[in-house]
């Protein structure tokens, strides 16, 4: 019984991550190296003015072109299209989605992999709310909004996943291809829509508790307009799925 071939592609959409990109790549190389799995990191830079792409090229020289793939775009085109673009170039049969700003820690990668194998899940979602998942750097207001929004989403959509807006996930490549084509939302709601559509298509979802270390929050407060667009997106999903 030959064990099935596995290769993991990590999609890293970046915008102005000159400082963080080398760090996240270093961590990915460290943890993937420890697991021994075959992997590649696909950097999708949206024309960052701070020179992120140049740093990515240096990383490519250090770690090799088979490990670090650069698939940049000319301007900020959004996450959905970044995923579509990234998946087209992925040579793995599994795809990791995560943030490049170090809020998602690659130390959870082995846990995602084991969880996926355990139930042959179509997707594994990192949750900040379940198990011993959690956050760092959030004040009371942020926690309240987050939990309140999640509660509302659970009541309205009954999604069967505890963290709908999280973006640290592992997908089977075919599953992600299928889902991204069908999703039309933007921002937080896009991540929610991916899970909701996965449910509709009867894909299986596993969960892994993760810690989310927010170093960015201080600069980008969660304001009224974001809350408004989240609510609009939630109601749209409620009415259309």
């Amino acid at each position: 019984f030959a064990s099935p071939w596995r290769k993991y592609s990590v999609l890293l959409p970046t915008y102005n991550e000159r400082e963080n990109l080398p760090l996240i790549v270093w961590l990915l190389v460290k943890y993937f190296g420890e697991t021994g799995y075959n992997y590649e990191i696909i950097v999708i830079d949206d024309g960052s003015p701070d020179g992120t792409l140049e740093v990515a090229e240096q990383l490519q020289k250090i770690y090799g072109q088979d490990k670090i793939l650069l698939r940049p775009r000319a301007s900020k085109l959004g996450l959905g299209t970044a995923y579509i673009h990234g998946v087209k170039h992925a040579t793995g049969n599994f795809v990791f989605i995560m943030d490049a700003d170090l809020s998602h820690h690659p130390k959870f990668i082995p846990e995602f992999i084991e969880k996926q194998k355990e139930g042959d899940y179509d997707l594994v979602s990192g949750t900040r709310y379940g198990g011993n998942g959690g956050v760092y750097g959030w004040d009371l207001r942020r926690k309240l909004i987050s939990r309140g929004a999640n509660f509302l989403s659970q009541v309205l959509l009954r999604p069967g996943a505890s963290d709908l807006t999280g973006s640290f996930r592992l997908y089977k490549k075919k599953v992600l291809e299928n889902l991204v084509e069908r999703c039309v939302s933007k921002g937080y709601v896009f991540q929610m829509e991916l899970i909701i559509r996965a449910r509709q298509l009867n894909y299986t979802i596993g969960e892994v508790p993760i810690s989310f270390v927010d170093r960015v929050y201080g600069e980008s407060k969660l304001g009224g307009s974001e809350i408004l667009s989240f609510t609009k997106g939630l109601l749209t999903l409620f009415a259309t799925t």
Partner: protein
Amino acid sequence: MTKLLQWLFGVSLLVAGWALVSFDLLDLKLPQPYREVAWPMPLYLLVSFGCYSLATVGYRVATFNDCEEAAKELQEQIKEAREDLRKRGLKM
């Protein structure tokens, strides 16, 4: 069926059941106690749900894990990473 339609359907059933009992629409001549209990039910249910929501969200906010260790570990690893990358020739 969309979630919205599921909700509308469910709510319609409940409202129909409530109206039937409260206003004795089918002329079943139900005993007065049934009607007295049924009548304020919608309000009771709404208030109960409101309390449940507040309690649940409150509990979840209060028990939201703070990952102090994770933040510290990250800081140390950042130092380690910067040092190693410098050695490998990365110019930051």
